[in-house]
């Protein structure tokens, strides 16, 4: 369910790239690329969890932490570490 909601949003983030002096343009471009990166990371992590559950993938420390925090429902570091910041 989570995967469906997220991946549907993935394709709709348009990519723009050229040099633009407008600070707002650069800001939103940066925001969009962070969002895309974050979404990719979350999607990959969740897909990996599914694979681990199916026995197709070995657990890593990253996935183990993620899975244990997912079952507790708390936010884990792996899920948001892609931002390299804890403030947003």
């Amino acid at each position: 369910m989570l995967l469906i909601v997220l991946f549907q949003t993935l394709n709709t983030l348009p990519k723009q790239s050229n040099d633009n002096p407008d600070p707002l343009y650069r800001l939103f471009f940066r925001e969009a690329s962070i969002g895309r990166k974050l979404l990719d990371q979350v999607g990959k992590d969740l897909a990996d969890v599914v694979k681990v559950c199916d026995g197709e993938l070995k657990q890593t420390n990253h996935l183990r932490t993620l899975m244990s925090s997912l079952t507790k429902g708390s936010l884990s570091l792996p899920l948001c570490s892609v931002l390299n910041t804890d403030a947003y």
Partner: protein
Amino acid sequence: MPKAMSVSEWIPDLARRLSQLDGITSVQQNLSNVEVWLGGLFFPEAYITATRQAVAHRKRWSLETLHLRLDIGQMNDPGAFIVDGMLFLSHPYRQIQTTFVGLILEGAAWDAENEKLILNDGQAVRLNASQIRWVQDDSSNEGHPADLVTLPVYLNNDRSDVMFTVDLPFDRHSASLVAMRAVCLTARG
């Protein structure tokens, strides 16, 4: 992100953020006119800085002389930046949802008629869409006007990250009450 946030809150929150970015990036031109859910950006401070740079560039003013003004509930200046209001979420399966996102005023309410803050019993009040303006402050030598109070705008109600501060009009006789009641604005809608 707030400390107490759970995964089940985080996922829809992320979806809302991406939905906003999706909406903004599809506009492509005239980005200064889009309404922004400030708390929904990954780096809201950067948005404030970007608006500052944009204004300085547009009006050929020096960055240091610019001062931020927040007009609550007003959107009448075409050169201003509109923060918060309603976010239109396009959901893949259901019809378009609207969510109220906006600045939240804690510990006080906004008196739109007299355009000033009034203290309340500590409830959080959701503000209407507001505009951010950068003005060149010529009167900076005269000191702080007595009927303005400086309020912090926090990222969320953890109150751990201050994004910026705003001066808002308030009854001059009870200005110290504002500090005692810990009145503030938070950006997470």
